[in-house]
């Protein structure tokens, strides 16, 4: 069959025979269906999850608060001096308790101090909203004294604070300074946060 006619015939016939005898090797991918809560990656459709944060400060973030009464007059007892502050709660969940650390100076038998916060502004020493006494009147100087405080009144994240120092007797005129630090701790054994919740919503 080595002729001029045979060659083209072989070239045409052979591939046809090969194809006709080949096994069917094509396959069709199965159709799938998809559902998503964010098929278009629109953020509002995704399941947003934000974990809590916790903390309180009496001053700027990561800063202890320190305030002073200035010097007192020698007479005219009782003499009342106040130290205002602003307390901010950045905790995003319920707070069961927290710790205040206090350091004072020149507090004694003739001079006491009191620490309180208000959900609104103070007028003089009168709270215009709900008042919480963090430290009842005391005439004992303290240094880095920790006290566990109860939950804060609900509502604002910012509270107006007032330290009231009263010279009740004597002629000592030295200023009283107060330093405050707030600590919120989430510990497995005893957390300052509210109890863990199980909800369905």
């Amino acid at each position, binding site marked *: 069959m080595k002729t001029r006619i045979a060659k083209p015939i072989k070239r045409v016939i052979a591939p046809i025979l090969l194809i006709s005898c080949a096994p069917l090797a094509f396959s069709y991918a199965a159709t799938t269906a998809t559902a998503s809560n964010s098929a278009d990656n629109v953020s509002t459709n995704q399941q*947003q999850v934000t974990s809590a944060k916790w*903390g309180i400060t009496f001053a700027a973030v990561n800063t202890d608060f320190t305030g002073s009464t200035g010097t007192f007059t020698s007479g005219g007892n009782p003499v009342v001096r106040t130290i205002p502050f602003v307390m901010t709660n*950045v905790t995003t969940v319920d707070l069961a308790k927290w710790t205040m650390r206090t350091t004072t100076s020149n507090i004694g038998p003739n001079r006491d101090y009191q620490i309180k916060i208000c959900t609104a502004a103070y007028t003089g020493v009168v709270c215009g909203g709900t008042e919480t006494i963090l430290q009842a009147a005391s005439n004992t100087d303290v240094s880095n004294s920790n006290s566990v405080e109860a939950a804060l009144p609900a509502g604002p994240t910012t509270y107006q604070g007032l330290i009231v120092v009263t010279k009740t007797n004597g002629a000592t005129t030295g200023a009283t300074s107060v330093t405050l630090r707030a600590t919120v701790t989430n510990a497995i054994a005893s957390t300052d946060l509210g109890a863990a919740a199980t909800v369905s*919503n």
Partner: protein
Amino acid sequence: MWQFRRANHRLSHTSFTVRFAIASLVALGGLTLSTTGVWTSLQAQSDNSGNPLSSQSGILSLVLSPNPESTTTSQGLGLATVTSPAIPTQTAATGWKLGNTDGVTNKTVKPGDTIYRFINLYLSGAVNATGLTMQVADLANGGAGSALSLCNSSTVNGTVCGATGLIPGLQLTVDQCSVATGWTAVTTAPGSCGNNTTDIKAVVATTYLKALIATTTDLNVLNPGTFATLTSNSTTADNSTAVARLRFKFTLPLAPTQSIQNANVPTTQTIQNQTSALKFTFNTTQRSAISVSS
């Protein structure tokens, strides 16, 4: 002599081929004439043109819906709008975040919290399906995810997870309700399903979200056969017609102590104030081809 024989052989071979080709053409011509000849005969014809056989390819479509669909308070997996089938559009603009564990305003999750969410999946087309898989992605931080999805109890990651166990990460459990009444009492954790024992089929055992990211989870493995046959029903949308009635349980495990002074909340290596944007994608496959005679 040799050249003469070779030439003669070539001539005879060529001659045979030519003759064979001519004979083939003649035969083929005759065959053509015989098949195209005019034959006079009576013919009858019948067709179904008056009632043509209608055929239509089916549609395979999977729909994700919060459960229940009838209220604006059910939040499903965060999806805000479902349009097909006719599932009411949710209008609650707030509260899509996972949480609400401390009332309306605080929508954050603290260590130890557990939140349940419920969804239904429907086949809205006409084609049945088989199998169900789930993919989870955390699209937060440009798709990089967050500590909630990147960390688990044993992960050590200097920039995100910190020391071992510092950030436990979010955990997820998924259960299927196998009865037509579906999940009920969904606003009271953990919801209810049938007899609350054997009617509840675990499809994703409790695991860290980290293990589910960037992988495909076959929801038919823990309880084989649970999603073997998914029946299409595009006319209604309720528990009875859903092909999957899933309960999602999110848990943020208790975390090691983090004591924060003067609100100095850390921004790295912490479980605090982490945000994830979770994308859930479900896939099913059309049912096997069938041969019927009808």
